[in-house]
């Protein structure tokens, strides 16, 4: 009898490590929040979609690789990150830095050459914001690190919008703000679950500094703010009824999850399974909200 295939660990390879440096699972959501706004902004050509997608992947991948270089002193401490190519000793730190800068440079050229200069500038701003403002400055100095740092992850819709229209306007700012205000409830759900890890690494995440109660309270208020904010583009004609109903229903489900964490925490009961569900659902929430935006504009 043979052992099940799933039990055999995959052998590490350079190609697999290079892909891992770009954090492909995280980028899939970033790509969705880049590409969906393109269909909200207009009817993009296949070439624009292709080059924006490739450029967006490379830029975000470059930022993630440079982030792994800068965090190499703490990645080996946390269970979540200790298997990354640098802490596990499979790749040299300088090689990771060079790879990150190289693909981000390639992304800037591709976007500037095949899409437009504004798109390249916005994508590069996202790279700099993530590397210097979030990773280098905020991450290890303030419990509000992911609040302001959330702006780094909010650049993709601006990139997608600019790729189609060549400008940034109020509607695109809303897409930016939706991701900005989605980040705290999303990331703090994970931070609540990984408090010990962040504590060991000395990263001042909100649950470690403010405590669970205050963090959960803020998750609730950020979720309410997000629901109100996501409804506002309807009022100046960017979206219609399909999007409005989707935003309220999807936001309502997220709110119910956060509310359940708060209720369980107040009673002193375990909220861990619910926090996991909220973390996973928040990913689905953002994906479905952006899909709803694209559908709404074309029905």
């Amino acid at each position: 009898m043979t052992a099940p295939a799933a039990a055999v660990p995959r052998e590490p390879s350079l190609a697999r490590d290079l892909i891992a440096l770009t954090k492909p699972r995280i980028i899939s959501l970033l790509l969705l929040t880049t590409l969906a706004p393109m269909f909200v902004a207009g009817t993009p050509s296949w070439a624009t979609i292709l080059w924006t997608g490739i450029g967006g992947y490379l830029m975000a991948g470059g930022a993630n690789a440079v982030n792994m270089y800068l965090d190499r002193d703490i990645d080996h401490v946390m269970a979540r990150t200790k298997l990354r190519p640098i802490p596990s000793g499979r790749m040299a730190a300088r090689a990771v830095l060079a790879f990150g800068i190289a693909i981000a440079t390639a992304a800037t050229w591709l976007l500037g050459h095949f899409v437009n200069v504004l798109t390249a500038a916005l994508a590069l701003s996202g790279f700099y914001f993530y590397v210097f403002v979030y990773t280098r400055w905020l991450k290890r100095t303030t419990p509000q690190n992911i609040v302001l740092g959330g702006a780094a992850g909010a650049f993709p819709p601006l990139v997608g919008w600019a790729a189609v229209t060549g400008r940034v306007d109020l509607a695109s700012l809303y897409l930016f703000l939706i991701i900005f205000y989605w980040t705290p409830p999303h990331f703090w759900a994970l931070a609540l679950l990984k408090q010990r890890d962040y504590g060991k690494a000395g990263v001042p995440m909100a649950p470690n500094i403010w405590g669970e109660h205050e963090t959960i309270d803020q998750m609730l208020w950020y979720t309410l703010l997000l629901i109100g904010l996501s409804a506002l583009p309807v009022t100046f004609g960017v979206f219609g009824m399909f999007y409005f109903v989707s935003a309220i229903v999807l936001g309502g489900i997220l709110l119910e999850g956060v509310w359940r964490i708060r209720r369980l925490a107040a009673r002193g009961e375990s909220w861990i399974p619910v926090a996991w569900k909220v973390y996973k659902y928040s990913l689905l929430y953002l994906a479905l909200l952006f899909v709803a935006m694209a559908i709404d504009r074309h029905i």
Partner: protein
Amino acid sequence: MPLPVVLWLSIALVAVSQVMILRSTVRAMRAAESEQARRGIEWAYAVVPVIVLLLVLVATWQASQEHALRLGLEASANQSVAP
């Protein structure tokens, strides 16, 4: 639901939530017993998004007024065309 109702309900929800976030941040800063200078920086971090949000809300109000005017003009044009 009429658009002005959506507008003002959403703005109220956003405003109340933002005030509660600021209150919670101040409470958390006090409880963390951080030094005065650190508190000032944390306060600045909390206020920056509020300023951006205020600007966006003002722009939203203006855009919604223009949108309402446009809808009104379209409706009156349709009425004048109808037999």
